[in-house]
Protein backbone atom coordinates (compact mmCIF):
# COMPACT_ATOMS: atom_id res chain seq x y z
CA UNK A 1 0.00 0.00 0.00
CA UNK A 2 1.43 3.42 -0.85
CA UNK A 3 1.58 6.30 1.55
CA UNK A 4 -1.31 8.20 -0.01
CA UNK A 5 -3.58 5.20 0.54
CA UNK A 6 -2.40 4.89 4.14
CA UNK A 7 -3.08 8.54 4.82
CA UNK A 8 -6.54 8.24 3.26
CA UNK A 9 -7.32 5.22 5.42
CA UNK A 10 -6.29 7.08 8.55
CA UNK A 11 -8.65 9.93 7.71
CA UNK A 12 -11.51 7.47 7.08
CA UNK A 13 -10.79 5.91 10.46
CA UNK A 14 -10.82 9.29 12.19
CA UNK A 15 -14.12 10.24 10.58
CA UNK A 16 -15.74 6.94 11.54
CA UNK A 17 -15.88 8.28 15.10
CA UNK A 18 -18.48 10.86 14.15
CA UNK A 19 -22.04 9.68 14.46
CA UNK A 20 -23.82 12.80 13.25
CA UNK A 21 -23.19 15.49 10.67
CA UNK A 22 -22.91 18.24 13.25
CA UNK A 23 -19.78 16.80 14.89
CA UNK A 24 -18.29 16.03 11.52
CA UNK A 25 -18.77 19.53 10.19
CA UNK A 26 -17.54 21.07 13.44
CA UNK A 27 -14.36 19.06 12.98
CA UNK A 28 -13.97 20.14 9.34
CA UNK A 29 -14.55 23.76 10.36
CA UNK A 30 -11.87 23.41 13.06
CA UNK A 31 -9.51 21.97 10.47
CA UNK A 32 -10.25 24.93 8.20
CA UNK A 33 -9.55 27.38 11.00
CA UNK A 34 -6.26 25.68 11.88
CA UNK A 35 -4.77 26.04 8.38
CA UNK A 36 -2.51 29.11 8.31
CA UNK A 37 -3.74 31.59 5.70
CA UNK A 38 -1.67 32.12 2.56
CA UNK A 39 0.23 35.40 2.43
CA UNK A 40 -0.57 38.05 -0.18
CA UNK A 41 1.99 36.61 -2.59
CA UNK A 42 0.40 33.19 -2.35
CA UNK A 43 -3.02 34.71 -3.02
CA UNK A 44 -1.95 35.79 -6.50
CA UNK A 45 -4.25 35.59 -9.50
CA UNK A 46 -1.98 32.90 -10.86
CA UNK A 47 -2.82 30.69 -7.88
CA UNK A 48 -6.54 31.54 -7.86
CA UNK A 49 -9.10 28.92 -8.75
CA UNK A 50 -12.39 30.74 -9.16
CA UNK A 51 -15.73 29.12 -8.39
CA UNK A 52 -19.17 30.73 -8.21
CA UNK A 53 -19.55 29.88 -4.53
CA UNK A 54 -16.09 30.37 -3.12
CA UNK A 55 -12.51 31.07 -4.16
CA UNK A 56 -9.54 28.76 -3.68
CA UNK A 57 -5.84 29.56 -3.92
CA UNK A 58 -3.33 26.77 -4.47
CA UNK A 59 0.46 27.05 -4.34
CA UNK A 60 2.71 24.17 -5.36
CA UNK A 61 6.43 23.70 -4.71
CA UNK A 62 8.85 20.88 -5.46
CA UNK A 63 11.79 19.52 -3.47
CA UNK A 64 13.81 16.40 -4.20
CA UNK A 65 11.21 15.05 -6.59
CA UNK A 66 8.32 15.50 -4.14
CA UNK A 67 5.50 18.03 -4.32
CA UNK A 68 4.41 20.33 -1.50
CA UNK A 69 1.15 22.25 -1.43
CA UNK A 70 -0.20 25.30 0.37
CA UNK A 71 -3.78 26.40 -0.10
CA UNK A 72 -6.39 28.81 1.14
CA UNK A 73 -10.07 29.57 0.60
CA UNK A 74 -12.49 32.30 1.64
CA UNK A 75 -14.94 29.58 2.75
CA UNK A 76 -14.02 27.72 5.90
CA UNK A 77 -15.65 24.36 5.11
CA UNK A 78 -13.93 24.33 1.73
CA UNK A 79 -10.68 25.17 3.51
CA UNK A 80 -11.21 22.29 5.93
CA UNK A 81 -11.64 19.83 3.08
CA UNK A 82 -8.61 21.34 1.36
CA UNK A 83 -6.56 20.65 4.47
CA UNK A 84 -7.54 16.97 4.20
CA UNK A 85 -6.43 16.90 0.56
CA UNK A 86 -3.12 18.52 1.42
CA UNK A 87 -2.61 16.08 4.26
CA UNK A 88 -2.98 13.28 1.74
CA UNK A 89 -0.85 14.78 -1.04
CA UNK A 90 1.84 16.81 0.73
CA UNK A 91 5.37 15.52 0.16
CA UNK A 92 4.29 12.80 -2.25
CA UNK A 93 5.80 11.90 -5.59
CA UNK A 94 4.06 13.17 -8.73
CA UNK A 95 3.28 9.69 -10.07
CA UNK A 96 1.59 8.62 -6.80
CA UNK A 97 -0.48 11.81 -6.82
CA UNK A 98 -1.58 11.08 -10.36
CA UNK A 99 -2.63 7.56 -9.39
CA UNK A 100 -4.62 8.59 -6.29
CA UNK A 101 -8.39 7.98 -6.63
CA UNK A 102 -9.52 9.98 -3.58
CA UNK A 103 -12.36 7.63 -2.69
CA UNK A 104 -11.83 8.62 0.95
CA UNK A 105 -13.93 11.74 0.40
CA UNK A 106 -16.85 9.52 -0.50
CA UNK A 107 -16.18 7.21 2.43
CA UNK A 108 -16.28 10.07 4.93
CA UNK A 109 -19.54 11.35 3.44
CA UNK A 110 -18.24 14.45 1.69
CA UNK A 111 -18.92 13.26 -1.82
CA UNK A 112 -21.46 15.99 -2.52
CA UNK A 113 -18.72 18.55 -1.99
CA UNK A 114 -17.00 17.24 -5.09
CA UNK A 115 -20.03 17.62 -7.30
CA UNK A 116 -19.31 20.07 -10.14
CA UNK A 117 -22.62 21.82 -9.42
CA UNK A 118 -21.39 22.94 -6.01
CA UNK A 119 -18.95 25.21 -7.82
CA UNK A 120 -16.87 25.57 -4.67
CA UNK A 121 -13.57 25.29 -6.50
CA UNK A 122 -12.68 21.89 -4.99
CA UNK A 123 -13.06 19.93 -8.21
CA UNK A 124 -10.93 22.44 -10.06
CA UNK A 125 -8.42 22.36 -7.24
CA UNK A 126 -8.00 18.59 -7.44
CA UNK A 127 -7.64 18.94 -11.20
CA UNK A 128 -4.95 21.58 -10.67
CA UNK A 129 -3.07 19.38 -8.15
CA UNK A 130 -3.08 16.60 -10.73
CA UNK A 131 -1.94 19.04 -13.42
CA UNK A 132 1.04 20.00 -11.26
CA UNK A 133 1.79 16.33 -10.68
CA UNK A 134 1.49 15.55 -14.38
CA UNK A 135 3.77 18.41 -15.35
CA UNK A 136 6.37 17.49 -12.75
CA UNK A 137 6.25 13.85 -13.77
CA UNK A 138 7.03 15.09 -17.29
CA UNK A 139 9.70 17.54 -16.11
CA UNK A 140 7.71 20.84 -16.24
CA UNK A 141 6.19 23.03 -13.49
CA UNK A 142 2.47 22.83 -14.27
CA UNK A 143 1.95 26.55 -13.65
CA UNK A 144 -1.18 28.00 -15.18
CA UNK A 145 -0.42 29.82 -18.40
CA UNK A 146 -2.63 32.88 -17.93
Amino acid at each position, binding site marked *: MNEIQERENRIVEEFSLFTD*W*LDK*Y*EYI*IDLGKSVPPLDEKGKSDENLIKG*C*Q*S*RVWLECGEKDGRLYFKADS*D*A*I*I*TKGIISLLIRVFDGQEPQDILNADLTFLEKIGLKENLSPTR*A*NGLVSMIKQIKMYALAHAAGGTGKKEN
Partner: protein
Amino acid sequence: MKLFTTFAANLCFLCVNRKHCSYFCIMNAIENIRKLFPALEQEMNGKKLVYLDNAATSQKPLPVIGLIERMNSGINANVHRAMYRLSDETTALYEGAREEVRKFINAPERENVIFTSGTTASINLVATCFCERYVNEGDVIVITADSHHSNIVPWQLACGRKGAHVRILPLKDNGEWDMDQLQDMIDRRVRLVAATQISNVLGLINPLDELILTAHRHDIPVLVDGAQGVVHMPVDVQEMDCDFYAFSGHKIYGATGTGILYGKKKWLEEMPPYMGGGDMVGTVTFERTTYAPLPLKYEAGTPDFIGASSFKPALEFVGNIREGETGKEVARSEKEITEYMRRALREIDGCILYGDAENKIPLFSFNVEGCHAGDIAQLLDKMGIAVRSGMMCAEPVMTRFGTTSMVRASFAPYNTLQEAQYLIDCLKKAVKMLR
Protein backbone atom coordinates in the same frame (compact mmCIF):
# COMPACT_ATOMS: atom_id res chain seq x y z
CA MET B 1 -50.14 19.10 11.62
CA LYS B 2 -53.35 17.67 10.18
CA LEU B 3 -55.07 17.76 13.53
CA PHE B 4 -53.96 21.31 14.00
CA THR B 5 -55.35 22.31 10.60
CA THR B 6 -58.71 20.78 11.32
CA PHE B 7 -58.81 22.64 14.59
CA ALA B 8 -57.84 25.86 12.81
CA ALA B 9 -60.49 25.32 10.16
CA ASN B 10 -63.16 24.87 12.79
CA LEU B 11 -62.04 27.92 14.64
CA CYS B 12 -62.10 30.02 11.49
CA PHE B 13 -65.52 28.69 10.62
CA LEU B 14 -66.87 29.91 13.93
CA CYS B 15 -65.02 33.14 13.78
CA VAL B 16 -67.08 36.06 12.52
CA ASN B 17 -64.53 38.80 12.93
CA ARG B 18 -61.38 37.43 11.33
CA LYS B 19 -59.20 39.84 13.24
CA HIS B 20 -59.52 37.57 16.27
CA CYS B 21 -57.84 34.61 14.67
CA SER B 22 -55.69 35.86 11.83
CA TYR B 23 -52.99 33.41 12.84
CA PHE B 24 -55.24 30.40 12.22
CA CYS B 25 -56.75 31.86 9.06
CA ILE B 26 -53.31 32.32 7.54
CA MET B 27 -52.22 28.85 8.66
CA ASN B 28 -55.30 27.35 7.11
CA ALA B 29 -54.98 29.15 3.76
CA ILE B 30 -51.26 28.34 3.44
CA GLU B 31 -51.83 24.71 4.44
CA ASN B 32 -54.42 24.37 1.66
CA ILE B 33 -51.95 25.77 -0.87
CA ARG B 34 -49.19 23.42 0.35
CA LYS B 35 -51.44 20.42 -0.32
CA LEU B 36 -51.12 21.17 -4.05
CA PHE B 37 -47.32 20.83 -4.00
CA PRO B 38 -46.16 17.24 -3.62
CA ALA B 39 -42.48 18.28 -3.80
CA LEU B 40 -42.83 20.01 -0.43
CA GLU B 41 -43.67 16.68 1.22
CA GLN B 42 -40.15 15.31 1.28
CA GLU B 43 -37.10 15.18 3.45
CA MET B 44 -33.67 16.58 2.72
CA ASN B 45 -30.75 15.18 4.73
CA GLY B 46 -33.20 13.51 7.09
CA LYS B 47 -35.07 16.75 7.89
CA LYS B 48 -38.40 18.01 6.57
CA LEU B 49 -37.59 20.04 3.46
CA VAL B 50 -37.82 23.81 3.87
CA TYR B 51 -37.64 25.08 0.31
CA LEU B 52 -36.52 28.70 0.20
CA ASP B 53 -35.00 28.97 -3.26
CA ASN B 54 -38.18 30.05 -5.02
CA ALA B 55 -36.54 32.97 -6.83
CA ALA B 56 -34.45 30.37 -8.69
CA THR B 57 -37.40 28.13 -9.48
CA SER B 58 -40.74 27.45 -7.86
CA GLN B 59 -42.20 24.03 -7.11
CA LYS B 60 -45.07 22.83 -9.33
CA PRO B 61 -48.71 22.48 -8.23
CA LEU B 62 -50.75 19.34 -9.04
CA PRO B 63 -52.74 20.89 -11.93
CA VAL B 64 -49.46 21.69 -13.74
CA ILE B 65 -47.98 18.26 -13.07
CA GLY B 66 -51.27 16.68 -14.17
CA LEU B 67 -51.44 18.55 -17.47
CA ILE B 68 -47.84 17.75 -18.38
CA GLU B 69 -48.43 14.08 -17.63
CA ARG B 70 -51.75 14.03 -19.53
CA MET B 71 -50.19 15.63 -22.59
CA ASN B 72 -47.14 13.39 -22.59
CA SER B 73 -49.18 10.25 -22.23
CA GLY B 74 -52.16 11.07 -24.39
CA ILE B 75 -52.21 14.30 -26.37
CA ASN B 76 -48.77 14.41 -27.89
CA ALA B 77 -48.84 15.79 -31.45
CA ASN B 78 -47.04 18.74 -32.97
CA VAL B 79 -48.79 22.12 -32.90
CA HIS B 80 -50.16 24.14 -35.82
CA ARG B 81 -49.24 21.49 -38.35
CA ALA B 82 -51.65 18.70 -38.98
CA MET B 83 -55.24 17.85 -39.83
CA TYR B 84 -56.03 15.26 -37.20
CA ARG B 85 -57.75 15.43 -33.86
CA LEU B 86 -54.71 15.00 -31.62
CA SER B 87 -52.90 17.87 -33.31
CA ASP B 88 -56.02 20.02 -32.93
CA GLU B 89 -56.08 19.23 -29.22
CA THR B 90 -52.44 20.18 -28.73
CA THR B 91 -52.92 23.37 -30.67
CA ALA B 92 -56.00 24.22 -28.62
CA LEU B 93 -54.09 23.72 -25.36
CA TYR B 94 -51.10 25.72 -26.63
CA GLU B 95 -53.21 28.62 -27.88
CA GLY B 96 -55.42 28.37 -24.79
CA ALA B 97 -52.33 28.93 -22.68
CA ARG B 98 -51.39 31.93 -24.82
CA GLU B 99 -54.85 33.38 -24.17
CA GLU B 100 -54.43 32.75 -20.43
CA VAL B 101 -51.10 34.62 -20.50
CA ARG B 102 -52.69 37.45 -22.49
CA LYS B 103 -55.43 37.84 -19.87
CA PHE B 104 -52.96 37.51 -16.99
CA ILE B 105 -50.79 40.43 -18.12
CA ASN B 106 -53.68 42.20 -19.88
CA ALA B 107 -52.01 42.29 -23.29
CA PRO B 108 -54.33 43.70 -25.98
CA GLU B 109 -54.17 40.74 -28.38
CA ARG B 110 -52.73 37.25 -28.77
CA GLU B 111 -50.33 38.71 -31.37
CA ASN B 112 -48.51 40.49 -28.53
CA VAL B 113 -47.68 37.28 -26.68
CA ILE B 114 -44.74 35.17 -27.87
CA PHE B 115 -43.69 31.86 -26.35
CA THR B 116 -39.95 31.56 -25.73
CA SER B 117 -37.77 29.23 -23.68
CA GLY B 118 -37.50 31.67 -20.75
CA THR B 119 -36.75 35.24 -19.67
CA THR B 120 -33.19 34.91 -20.98
CA ALA B 121 -34.42 33.88 -24.42
CA SER B 122 -37.00 36.68 -24.44
CA ILE B 123 -34.40 39.34 -23.67
CA ASN B 124 -31.94 37.87 -26.18
CA LEU B 125 -34.65 38.00 -28.82
CA VAL B 126 -35.28 41.70 -28.24
CA ALA B 127 -31.57 42.55 -27.88
CA THR B 128 -30.77 40.85 -31.17
CA CYS B 129 -33.76 41.92 -33.28
CA PHE B 130 -34.27 45.42 -31.84
CA CYS B 131 -30.58 46.33 -32.12
CA GLU B 132 -30.45 44.88 -35.63
CA ARG B 133 -33.27 47.17 -36.70
CA TYR B 134 -32.77 50.37 -34.68
CA VAL B 135 -29.28 50.59 -33.19
CA ASN B 136 -26.28 52.13 -34.92
CA GLU B 137 -22.68 52.93 -34.05
CA GLY B 138 -22.37 55.25 -31.06
CA ASP B 139 -25.90 54.55 -29.82
CA VAL B 140 -26.66 53.63 -26.21
CA ILE B 141 -28.78 51.06 -24.37
CA VAL B 142 -29.47 51.94 -20.71
CA ILE B 143 -29.79 49.06 -18.22
CA THR B 144 -30.41 49.17 -14.48
CA ALA B 145 -27.51 48.26 -12.16
CA ASP B 146 -29.60 45.64 -10.33
CA SER B 147 -29.83 43.51 -13.48
CA HIS B 148 -29.44 39.75 -13.66
CA HIS B 149 -26.73 38.64 -16.13
CA SER B 150 -29.60 37.85 -18.52
CA ASN B 151 -30.37 41.56 -18.77
CA ILE B 152 -26.70 42.52 -19.17
CA VAL B 153 -24.92 40.10 -21.49
CA PRO B 154 -27.49 40.07 -24.36
CA TRP B 155 -27.16 43.89 -24.59
CA GLN B 156 -23.36 43.74 -24.45
CA LEU B 157 -23.38 41.21 -27.29
CA ALA B 158 -25.84 43.15 -29.43
CA CYS B 159 -24.14 46.51 -28.76
CA GLY B 160 -20.77 44.93 -29.54
CA ARG B 161 -22.00 43.93 -32.97
CA LYS B 162 -23.21 47.47 -33.68
CA GLY B 163 -20.46 49.52 -32.04
CA ALA B 164 -23.00 50.76 -29.49
CA HIS B 165 -22.59 51.08 -25.69
CA VAL B 166 -24.33 49.96 -22.54
CA ARG B 167 -24.94 52.63 -19.90
CA ILE B 168 -25.85 51.79 -16.29
CA LEU B 169 -28.46 53.43 -14.05
CA PRO B 170 -26.73 53.12 -10.62
CA LEU B 171 -28.11 51.99 -7.28
CA LYS B 172 -28.26 53.79 -3.94
CA ASP B 173 -26.78 52.11 -0.86
CA ASN B 174 -30.16 50.69 0.18
CA GLY B 175 -30.49 48.99 -3.22
CA GLU B 176 -33.04 51.36 -4.75
CA TRP B 177 -32.46 52.90 -8.18
CA ASP B 178 -30.74 56.28 -8.01
CA MET B 179 -33.53 58.12 -9.83
CA ASP B 180 -31.72 61.46 -9.51
CA GLN B 181 -29.31 60.22 -12.14
CA LEU B 182 -31.97 59.03 -14.57
CA GLN B 183 -32.21 62.37 -16.38
CA ASP B 184 -28.44 62.35 -17.02
CA MET B 185 -28.68 58.85 -18.44
CA ILE B 186 -31.17 59.82 -21.12
CA ASP B 187 -29.91 61.65 -24.16
CA ARG B 188 -30.56 61.52 -27.90
CA ARG B 189 -28.23 58.53 -28.37
CA VAL B 190 -30.29 56.24 -26.13
CA ARG B 191 -32.31 53.72 -28.16
CA LEU B 192 -33.84 51.59 -25.39
CA VAL B 193 -33.98 51.22 -21.60
CA ALA B 194 -33.91 47.66 -20.20
CA ALA B 195 -35.09 47.68 -16.59
CA THR B 196 -35.48 45.09 -13.85
CA GLN B 197 -38.91 45.14 -12.21
CA ILE B 198 -37.73 43.32 -9.06
CA SER B 199 -34.08 42.31 -8.68
CA ASN B 200 -33.39 38.64 -7.96
CA VAL B 201 -30.85 39.75 -5.35
CA LEU B 202 -32.43 42.80 -3.70
CA GLY B 203 -36.14 41.97 -3.93
CA LEU B 204 -37.24 45.62 -4.15
CA ILE B 205 -40.20 46.72 -6.24
CA ASN B 206 -38.65 49.33 -8.51
CA PRO B 207 -40.35 52.59 -9.58
CA LEU B 208 -41.05 51.42 -13.13
CA ASP B 209 -43.84 53.95 -13.74
CA GLU B 210 -41.50 56.89 -13.24
CA LEU B 211 -38.79 55.31 -15.41
CA ILE B 212 -41.15 54.46 -18.24
CA LEU B 213 -42.71 57.91 -18.16
CA THR B 214 -39.30 59.58 -18.37
CA ALA B 215 -38.11 57.30 -21.18
CA HIS B 216 -41.30 57.73 -23.18
CA ARG B 217 -41.08 61.49 -22.85
CA HIS B 218 -37.95 61.09 -24.99
CA ASP B 219 -39.62 58.51 -27.28
CA ILE B 220 -37.38 55.75 -25.91
CA PRO B 221 -38.96 52.29 -25.56
CA VAL B 222 -38.58 50.27 -22.35
CA LEU B 223 -38.08 46.54 -21.86
CA VAL B 224 -39.00 45.17 -18.44
CA ASP B 225 -37.35 42.05 -17.03
CA GLY B 226 -40.30 40.67 -15.08
CA ALA B 227 -38.81 37.30 -14.10
CA GLN B 228 -39.29 38.04 -10.38
CA GLY B 229 -41.87 40.81 -10.73
CA VAL B 230 -44.65 38.81 -12.38
CA VAL B 231 -44.49 36.23 -9.56
CA HIS B 232 -45.06 38.74 -6.80
CA MET B 233 -47.41 41.42 -8.11
CA PRO B 234 -50.23 41.88 -10.61
CA VAL B 235 -48.91 42.97 -14.00
CA ASP B 236 -50.93 45.00 -16.49
CA VAL B 237 -48.69 45.70 -19.47
CA GLN B 238 -51.10 48.27 -20.91
CA GLU B 239 -51.34 50.23 -17.71
CA MET B 240 -47.57 49.93 -17.18
CA ASP B 241 -47.17 50.96 -20.83
CA CYS B 242 -43.88 49.06 -21.22
CA ASP B 243 -42.82 48.21 -24.75
CA PHE B 244 -41.55 44.71 -23.94
CA TYR B 245 -42.14 42.49 -20.91
CA ALA B 246 -40.19 39.25 -20.35
CA PHE B 247 -40.75 36.45 -17.86
CA SER B 248 -40.26 32.71 -17.27
CA GLY B 249 -42.74 29.88 -16.73
CA HIS B 250 -40.74 27.88 -14.20
CA LYS B 251 -40.57 30.68 -11.63
CA ILE B 252 -44.36 31.11 -11.70
CA TYR B 253 -45.27 27.45 -11.06
CA GLY B 254 -45.17 26.37 -14.72
CA ALA B 255 -42.86 24.07 -16.66
CA THR B 256 -39.13 24.66 -17.06
CA GLY B 257 -37.87 25.76 -20.45
CA THR B 258 -40.81 28.09 -21.05
CA GLY B 259 -41.03 31.84 -21.16
CA ILE B 260 -43.00 34.78 -22.47
CA LEU B 261 -42.14 37.85 -24.42
CA TYR B 262 -44.82 40.51 -24.55
CA GLY B 263 -44.18 43.24 -27.09
CA LYS B 264 -46.09 46.17 -28.52
CA LYS B 265 -47.21 45.32 -32.04
CA LYS B 266 -45.36 48.21 -33.67
CA TRP B 267 -41.99 46.79 -32.53
CA LEU B 268 -42.81 43.15 -33.13
CA GLU B 269 -43.94 43.97 -36.65
CA GLU B 270 -40.98 46.16 -37.53
CA MET B 271 -38.23 44.01 -36.04
CA PRO B 272 -36.74 41.23 -38.18
CA PRO B 273 -37.38 37.59 -37.16
CA TYR B 274 -35.05 36.05 -34.57
CA MET B 275 -34.57 32.50 -35.77
CA GLY B 276 -35.56 30.99 -39.08
CA GLY B 277 -37.22 27.62 -39.53
CA GLY B 278 -40.52 25.82 -39.35
CA ASP B 279 -43.79 27.55 -38.46
CA MET B 280 -42.42 31.10 -38.74
CA VAL B 281 -42.83 31.38 -42.50
CA GLY B 282 -45.43 32.53 -45.00
CA THR B 283 -44.06 31.33 -48.33
CA VAL B 284 -40.64 29.85 -48.88
CA THR B 285 -38.84 29.73 -52.20
CA PHE B 286 -35.09 29.45 -52.66
CA GLU B 287 -35.06 33.09 -53.74
CA ARG B 288 -37.20 34.68 -51.07
CA THR B 289 -39.17 33.88 -47.93
CA THR B 290 -42.05 35.75 -46.38
CA TYR B 291 -42.78 35.41 -42.69
CA ALA B 292 -45.76 34.20 -40.75
CA PRO B 293 -47.91 36.82 -39.03
CA LEU B 294 -47.46 37.48 -35.31
CA PRO B 295 -46.96 35.78 -32.96
CA LEU B 296 -45.65 32.81 -34.99
CA LYS B 297 -43.06 35.01 -36.74
CA TYR B 298 -40.93 34.65 -33.59
CA GLU B 299 -41.70 30.99 -32.85
CA ALA B 300 -39.42 29.11 -35.23
CA GLY B 301 -39.17 25.34 -34.88
CA THR B 302 -41.24 23.04 -32.72
CA PRO B 303 -41.80 24.92 -29.47
CA ASP B 304 -41.99 23.20 -26.08
CA PHE B 305 -45.74 22.99 -26.64
CA ILE B 306 -46.36 20.84 -23.58
CA GLY B 307 -44.39 23.15 -21.32
CA ALA B 308 -45.99 26.24 -22.83
CA SER B 309 -49.47 24.76 -22.33
CA SER B 310 -48.73 24.53 -18.60
CA PHE B 311 -48.96 28.33 -18.40
CA LYS B 312 -52.73 27.91 -18.22
CA PRO B 313 -52.98 25.81 -15.04
CA ALA B 314 -50.00 27.67 -13.55
CA LEU B 315 -51.51 31.12 -14.02
CA GLU B 316 -54.97 29.89 -12.97
CA PHE B 317 -53.33 28.76 -9.73
CA VAL B 318 -51.76 32.21 -9.28
CA GLY B 319 -55.13 33.83 -9.97
CA ASN B 320 -56.74 31.65 -7.29
CA ILE B 321 -54.21 32.47 -4.58
CA ARG B 322 -54.44 36.19 -5.32
CA GLU B 323 -58.23 36.36 -5.11
CA GLY B 324 -60.77 36.57 -2.30
CA GLU B 325 -60.11 35.41 1.25
CA THR B 326 -57.16 33.25 0.18
CA GLY B 327 -55.58 36.24 -1.52
CA LYS B 328 -55.96 38.31 1.64
CA GLU B 329 -54.43 35.59 3.82
CA VAL B 330 -51.52 35.07 1.42
CA ALA B 331 -50.79 38.80 1.34
CA ARG B 332 -50.99 38.91 5.15
CA SER B 333 -48.68 35.92 5.45
CA GLU B 334 -46.08 37.42 3.09
CA LYS B 335 -46.18 40.71 4.99
CA GLU B 336 -45.74 38.90 8.29
CA ILE B 337 -42.81 36.87 6.96
CA THR B 338 -41.15 39.97 5.47
CA GLU B 339 -41.48 41.94 8.70
CA TYR B 340 -40.24 39.01 10.76
CA MET B 341 -37.24 38.30 8.51
CA ARG B 342 -36.10 41.93 8.37
CA ARG B 343 -36.31 42.23 12.13
CA ALA B 344 -34.72 38.85 12.87
CA LEU B 345 -31.81 39.33 10.45
CA ARG B 346 -31.13 42.79 11.88
CA GLU B 347 -30.88 41.24 15.35
CA ILE B 348 -28.13 38.82 14.29
CA ASP B 349 -24.77 40.33 15.16
CA GLY B 350 -22.85 41.35 12.03
CA CYS B 351 -25.66 40.52 9.61
CA ILE B 352 -26.03 42.69 6.51
CA LEU B 353 -29.34 42.54 4.62
CA TYR B 354 -29.05 43.81 1.05
CA GLY B 355 -31.99 45.76 -0.31
CA ASP B 356 -33.34 46.67 3.12
CA ALA B 357 -36.12 49.06 2.13
CA GLU B 358 -39.90 49.26 2.51
CA ASN B 359 -41.13 48.11 -0.91
CA LYS B 360 -39.78 44.59 -0.49
CA ILE B 361 -41.00 41.15 -1.53
CA PRO B 362 -40.20 38.19 0.76
CA LEU B 363 -36.70 37.72 -0.69
CA PHE B 364 -33.70 38.21 1.57
CA SER B 365 -30.09 38.29 0.45
CA PHE B 366 -27.64 38.64 3.30
CA ASN B 367 -24.18 38.02 4.67
CA VAL B 368 -23.02 37.48 8.24
CA GLU B 369 -19.65 38.91 9.21
CA GLY B 370 -16.99 36.27 9.67
CA CYS B 371 -18.98 33.59 7.82
CA HIS B 372 -18.79 32.73 4.14
CA ALA B 373 -22.14 32.54 2.34
CA GLY B 374 -21.27 29.14 0.86
CA ASP B 375 -20.50 27.73 4.32
CA ILE B 376 -23.80 29.01 5.72
CA ALA B 377 -25.76 27.49 2.80
CA GLN B 378 -23.96 24.18 3.23
CA LEU B 379 -24.80 23.96 6.94
CA LEU B 380 -28.42 24.99 6.30
CA ASP B 381 -28.64 22.19 3.72
CA LYS B 382 -27.68 19.74 6.46
CA MET B 383 -30.61 21.09 8.49
CA GLY B 384 -33.07 20.57 5.63
CA ILE B 385 -33.15 24.15 4.34
CA ALA B 386 -32.66 24.93 0.66
CA VAL B 387 -31.29 28.44 0.12
CA ARG B 388 -29.19 29.93 -2.64
CA SER B 389 -25.64 31.14 -2.17
CA GLY B 390 -23.02 32.62 -4.45
CA MET B 391 -23.23 35.41 -6.99
CA MET B 392 -26.82 34.61 -8.05
CA CYS B 393 -26.06 35.42 -11.71
CA ALA B 394 -25.61 39.06 -10.77
CA GLU B 395 -21.89 39.69 -10.32
CA PRO B 396 -22.18 43.48 -10.78
CA VAL B 397 -24.66 43.60 -7.87
CA MET B 398 -22.14 41.68 -5.72
CA THR B 399 -19.42 44.15 -6.73
CA ARG B 400 -21.70 47.13 -5.99
CA PHE B 401 -22.11 45.90 -2.42
CA GLY B 402 -18.44 44.93 -2.03
CA THR B 403 -18.82 41.17 -1.81
CA THR B 404 -18.33 38.06 -3.94
CA SER B 405 -21.23 36.04 -2.59
CA MET B 406 -24.43 36.25 -0.57
CA VAL B 407 -26.97 33.87 0.97
CA ARG B 408 -30.50 34.26 -0.38
CA ALA B 409 -33.73 32.98 1.14
CA SER B 410 -36.68 33.57 -1.18
CA PHE B 411 -40.22 32.71 -0.09
CA ALA B 412 -43.29 31.60 -2.03
CA PRO B 413 -46.92 31.70 -0.88
CA TYR B 414 -46.60 28.08 0.28
CA ASN B 415 -43.88 28.99 2.79
CA THR B 416 -44.92 29.62 6.38
CA LEU B 417 -43.82 31.93 9.16
CA GLN B 418 -42.77 28.79 11.05
CA GLU B 419 -40.34 28.01 8.25
CA ALA B 420 -38.92 31.52 8.48
CA GLN B 421 -38.47 31.05 12.23
CA TYR B 422 -36.79 27.69 11.67
CA LEU B 423 -34.46 29.33 9.14
CA ILE B 424 -33.42 31.98 11.64
CA ASP B 425 -32.83 29.37 14.39
CA CYS B 426 -30.69 27.29 12.05
CA LEU B 427 -28.85 30.34 10.76
CA LYS B 428 -27.89 31.27 14.34
CA LYS B 429 -26.65 27.71 14.86
CA ALA B 430 -24.58 27.83 11.64
CA VAL B 431 -23.07 31.19 12.51
CA LYS B 432 -22.07 29.88 15.93
CA MET B 433 -20.32 26.92 14.30
CA LEU B 434 -18.51 29.03 11.72
CA ARG B 435 -17.25 31.85 13.90
